[in-house]
């Protein structure tokens, strides 16, 4: 995804972050943290006229107020883009659902993603990680984003859905087209959604003939509140969601974690010496490098943290910025892998808490553990360049690493 900046239509460069921010500006993509600090020092909610009008809550408190407020903020649009095309019914339920439709749609998806369900999937994910490492460890180096972090969530979600793990490259292309290129290119987005829908429609049809024991069949067999089977459009929408939300996000979280560990031998050595720190380390890496910024649409005028908010605008619900708020987290800009109190919002707050959070945590834990077992010493390759994805999900898309001790 390193090519995204060069193929997207240009936005004018930002000269005034406080009144004219742009979350697709290359400086934001590269290093958003000082920008968020500047905005937060100015106001809990800032506004830009770009993207037809967007607010950005900059504090944990403001993000939380919006996340809990489904009366004034709708999830019918969850990506901030150059255009506001018509809202699609059953776009990707439940992430695009508001109450009262949200709860029944979400409850269908929750049981397959509990921590216990993830424990059953864990051995397969551990095997996936080792299969991937086998492919490059002898080279003494690799692009960890292209060869490792990308494939772990793709193969895991394919395994859960019951579709071929080898179709991963297709999924990755669609996600790139939807989440990155689609921000500024409507036709690209439509084409990707259409291809993805066609792909899943085929798998749904096949299961009508021969039911299987996987997540697609689970959704097809699910009943709504009135005991009726879900319409195919709902099943398709939820499958789109699982693929889109299940891949880029965890790819990013694993990538940022390895990026941090490559630059921070002390944390790496401590995790190897004290593996019991892994759970708190994973939470801290999720806090410090939260990948996902969701969006809301303002549907009724209100006031957030003292700032008036008007309908017609979108909101970039920056959980990553909230997680760097020093009013909430002491030493917010430091990664403290044994941080004791960590109410981070990487998976959202309120009713839209990420349905795959237990999957993401398990994948991160396993991917970091297996990497550290096989490759305890590694560093960023000075001959290469780290690049970051733009837009809704932030993580390394090129992550060149050298293995072994330096020198």
């Amino acid at each position, binding site marked *: 995804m390193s090519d995204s900046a060069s193929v997207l239509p240009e936005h004018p460069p930002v000269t005034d972050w406080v009144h004219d921010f742009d979350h697709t500006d290359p400086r934001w993509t590269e290093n958003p943290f000082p920008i968020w600090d500047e905005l937060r020092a100015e106001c809990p909610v800032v506004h830009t006229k770009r993207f037809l009008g967007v607010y950005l809550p900059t504090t944990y408190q403001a993000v939380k107020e919006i996340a809990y407020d489904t009366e004034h903020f709708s999830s019918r649009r969850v990506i901030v883009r150059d255009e506001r095309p018509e809202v699609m019914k059953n776009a990707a339920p439940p992430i695009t659902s508001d109450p009262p439709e949200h709860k029944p749609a979400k*409850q269908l998806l*929750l*049981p397959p*993603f*509990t*921590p*216990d369900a993830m424990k059953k999937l864990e051995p397969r994910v551990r095997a996936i990680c080792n299969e991937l490492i086998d492919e490059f460890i002898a080279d003494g180096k690799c692009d960890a984003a292209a060869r490792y972090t990308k494939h772990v969530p793709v193969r895991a979600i394919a395994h859960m859905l019951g579709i071929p793990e080898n179709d991963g490259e297709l999924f990755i292309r669609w996600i790139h087209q939807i989440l990155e290129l689609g921000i500024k290119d409507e036709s690209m987005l439509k084409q990707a959604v259409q291809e993805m829908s066609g792909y899943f429609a085929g798998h749904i049809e096949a299961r009508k003939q021969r039911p299987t024991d996987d997540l697609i069949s689970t959704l097809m067999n699910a009943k709504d509140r009135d005991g009726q089977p879900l319409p195919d459009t709902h099943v398709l929408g939820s499958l789109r969601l699982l693929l889109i939300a299940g891949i880029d996000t965890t790819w990013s979280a694993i990538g940022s974690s390895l990026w941090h560990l490559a630059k921070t031998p002390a944390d790496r050595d401590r995790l190897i010496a004290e593996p019991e720190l892994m*759970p708190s380390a994973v*939470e801290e890496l999720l806090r410090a490098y939260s990948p996902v910024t969701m969006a809301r649409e303002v549907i009724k005028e209100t006031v957030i943290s003292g700032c008036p908010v008007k309908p017609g605008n979108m909101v970039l619900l920056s959980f990553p910025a909230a997680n760097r708020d020093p009013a909430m987290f002491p030493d917010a800009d430091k990664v403290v892998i044994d941080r*004791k*109190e*960590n*109410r*981070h*919002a990487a*998976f959202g*707050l*309120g*009713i839209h*808490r990420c349905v795959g*959070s*237990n999957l993401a945590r398990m994948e991160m834990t396993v991917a970091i553990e297996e990497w550290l077992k096989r490759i305890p010493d590694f560093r960023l390759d000075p001959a290469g360049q780290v690049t970051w994805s733009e837009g809704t999900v932030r993580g390394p898309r090129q992550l060149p690493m050298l293995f072994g001790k330096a020198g």
Partner: protein
Amino acid sequence: MSKSPGLRLRVDQQKCQGHARCKSLAPELFELDEYGNAHEIGDGSVPAGLEDKAWLAQANCPEIAIEVTEE
């Protein structure tokens, strides 16, 4: 030495969104239902020796859904 007061905890079902941080930090004190939402085990009394875990779970709940009271 006087006996320290016992703790009791309760998960507010209106607030819990199933982050499952409590279950991860204090599996002795919380259980999850089929949707992954957390509930205190039994009547929520915290056995002696698990007080720190109760406070830790409370301090890490993103939804502030866990109440700990001293009895």
